[in-house]
Every structure is written in structure tokens, then in C-alpha cells.
């Protein structure tokens, strides 16, 4: 009883303040959540349109598709279909994420209509080391993924980054970040392909 009384005497202010501050953050979050989500969606569309240049817009092809995250948890993602001005499917786009060197890396991955080749990736959010890991955003690294096969990619520390194949040349001084991007793409690409095949949205390769 004495211990409990002492605990409350010592920490009541911290408990009250934490509760009030938690409430304050919740209110701020609720007030600005719509704008933040809208900004993320705008960014998704801009990034995806930059990679799928023929796309006039995006529509949700699979809502809440169940995917296993890199940590083994079941998560739900939206898979979007890129539609050209004449209504044809010109590709697929979805968000994938995993751990980077410093923090979570969130990518927009785009694939061509037949799900054979990657159209590229864009970084939606990351906190990689400035000057090193954040070079995953630069064309030098990103261009290696444009038209690369939509299959298991491998990382190489040396090689010619201009040769487009399944071997990606790592960023010097940022191997962990380079590896993280490949790991995320490899992990998601097969699962998304399976999801689209199971719904008959792309041809079954069997």
C-alpha cells in the first residue's frame, strides 16, 4: 500500500501530463490526417505516373489484398491498375515497405501490364542516411530497375549499372539500403503476382 501511494505521489504529474499530451497528439492527428493521406495519395500518383508514362489515371484493382510483410505479419495493400487515356491497362502500381538502414522504407513499385517487367520504383518515404542511403532516390540507382525482369533480383557490388538485367549494382557506401530495396521488391513482387493471377487479372504463367 505504501509502495503504491509513493508511486502515485512521485509520478502523478507524469501520468496526467502524458495523458493530456497523448490527447493533444490524437486531436492534431485526427485534424490533419485527411491532408496527410491526400498528400500521400498525390505523391503516389505522381511517382507512379512518372514511371508509367502512358497512364492517365489509376483505379483500385484489388482492394485489401492480403500480403505477408517482411516481418511475417499479414497486411493488406491496395493494388492499383494504371489506365491509359483510351481505357487500356498499361501497368500495375502498389505500395510496398520494409526495413532500411535507419528506418522503414516505403516504396511505390510499378510493373508493366503483363507483369513481366518492372517499370521502376519511387521512394514514398524513407529516413536513410543523407548522402549515403538516401541515394536510393537518385536516377543512378533507380534507372537500373526500369525494364528489369519482374522476378527475383540480386545485388552486386560491382558491375555496369547501365546494363538492365536482374543484377542490380549497389550504391557505394550504402549497401544496406541498396539491399533493403531489393529485399522489399523481391518479397512483394511474387505475392502481388499470385494475387493478380488468382483473380484472373493477369495471365497465369503456368
Amino acid at each position: 500500500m505504501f509502495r503504491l501511494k509513493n508511486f502515485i505521489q512521485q509520478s502523478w504529474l507524469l501520468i496526467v501530463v502524458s495523458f493530456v499530451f497523448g490527447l493533444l497528439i490524437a486531436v492534431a492527428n485526427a485534424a490533419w490526417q485527411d491532408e496527410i493521406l491526400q498528400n500521400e495519395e498525390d505523391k503516389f500518383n505522381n511517382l507512379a505516373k512518372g514511371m508509367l508514362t502512358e497512364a492517365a489515371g489509376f483505379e483500385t484493382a484489388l482492394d485489401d489484398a492480403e500480403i505477408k510483410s517482411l516481418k511475417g505479419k499479414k497486411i493488406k495493400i491496395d493494388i492499383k491498375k494504371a489506365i491509359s487515356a483510351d481505357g487500356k491497362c498499361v501497368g500495375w502500381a502498389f505500395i510496398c515497405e520494409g526495413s532500411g538502414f535507419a528506418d522503414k522504407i516505403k516504396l511505390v513499385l510499378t510493373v508493366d501490364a503483363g507483369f513481366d517487367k518492372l517499370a521502376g520504383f519511387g521512394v514514398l518515404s524513407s529516413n536513410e542516411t543523407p548522402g549515403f542511403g538516401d541515394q536510393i532516390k537518385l536516377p543512378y540507382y533507380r534507372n537500373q530497375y526500369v525494364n528489369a525482369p519482374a522476378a527475383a533480383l540480386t545485388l552486386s557490388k560491382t558491375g555496369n549499372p547501365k546494363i538492365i538485367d536482374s543484377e542490380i549494382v549497389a550504391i557505394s557506401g550504402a549497401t544496406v539500403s541498396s539491399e533493403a530495396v531489393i529485399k522489399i521488391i523481391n518479397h512483394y513482387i511474387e505475392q502481388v503476382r499470385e494475387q493478380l493471377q488468382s483473380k484472373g487479372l493477369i495471365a497465369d504463367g503456368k
Partner: protein
Amino acid sequence: MANDAVKEGVYKDMLLRGLWRENPVLRLLLGMCPTLAVTVAVKPALTMGLSVVFVLVCSNIVVSLIRNLLKPHLRILMFTVTIATFVTIADLFLKAYLPDMSERLGPYVPLIIVNCIIICRAEACASKNSLFISIIDAIGMGIGFTLTLCVLAGIREILATGAVFEIQILALQNQGGWFVPWAAMSMPVGAFITLGLMLALVNVITKRKS
């Protein structure tokens, strides 16, 4: 009447000391991480400075209001919780209304939580003084920090790109002008050299004055 004049003088002195005599960056050498990291251009430097002013003012208000209830051994924890709350709010605001700037500043906005200036002012001023004095101290220190960041960023931006606030001032050589951009100024080395020169200049001026 005389008492009011003395008080006014004290407040004015408190407001101004953050600009020069106790400038957090140039005299106290606090907040070096954002000073070096976000001063590539004036816009991110100004955004960072204003975010710090917001967090500094809000945290000083809260700490000053609860100063008589603080337990000595829990005070640092209380300061950290307070600062983290306002940094989270500033971060959410930037994400909602200045998404490009939020992305440009990256992890340095959340890192305001560990900015020594804020915890230093909470400990040295707000936990010992009245609300009004704490607010004045926060504004003075915040403006001092923001101005220093902007001057440093202005020097780096003009030498690295020939522009200030993204407005082209010097005609670049590759566009028919005379100015050759100093690429090093946009790199970390540019931040260290410029800050070093600014610190040296401040030391020389201070020595001459004394």
C-alpha cells in the same frame, strides 16, 4: 515607474541576448546537428528555425506552468515528454501543409526532440522563471537560432547555386554569366567551413568589443 522601466529593460535584454550575447549556435554551440544538416538552402533552414521556435515557446510555456510541481529526479523525463509532444505536432503540421519541405527536412524534424537548445532553455530558464519571462526567453533564443541558420544557409546557397531563397542572383557561367558555382558548399564540408568561419568572426568581434 522606475521599477517598470527596469523590468522593461530586463525583458528587452532577455529577448536580445539570444541574438548575440548568448546566441545558441554561435556562442553556446548548441543545436549543431540541424545547423550543419539543413543549411543547404534558406527555405529548409527557415522552416527548421520556425519549427524550433514553435517547440521552444510551447515547451517553455508548459515547463514554466508546471515548474512548482516538478520532482527534481523526474524533471528531465517531463521535459522530454513535453518536447516530444510539440515536435510530433510540428511534424504532423509539416506533413499536412508543407509536404515537400517535410520530405526535404527528413529525419531532422523528429530530431528536434534531442535538440540541446530546447532542453537547455527548459532547464536553465523555464523551470525557474515565470511564464512571461520563459516566453520571452524562448522567442529570443528561437529567433537567434533561426537567424543564424538563415545566414549560414544564405551564404551556402548563394555560393553553391548563385541563388538565395531559390531566386537567381548571380548569373551562372553555364547560362552565359560569370559565376562558377562552388559545389563543395552544398556538401557537408561547406557547412563545416562556413560555420567555422562564422564562429571565428564572432570570436574576433567579441574579443575586440571586450
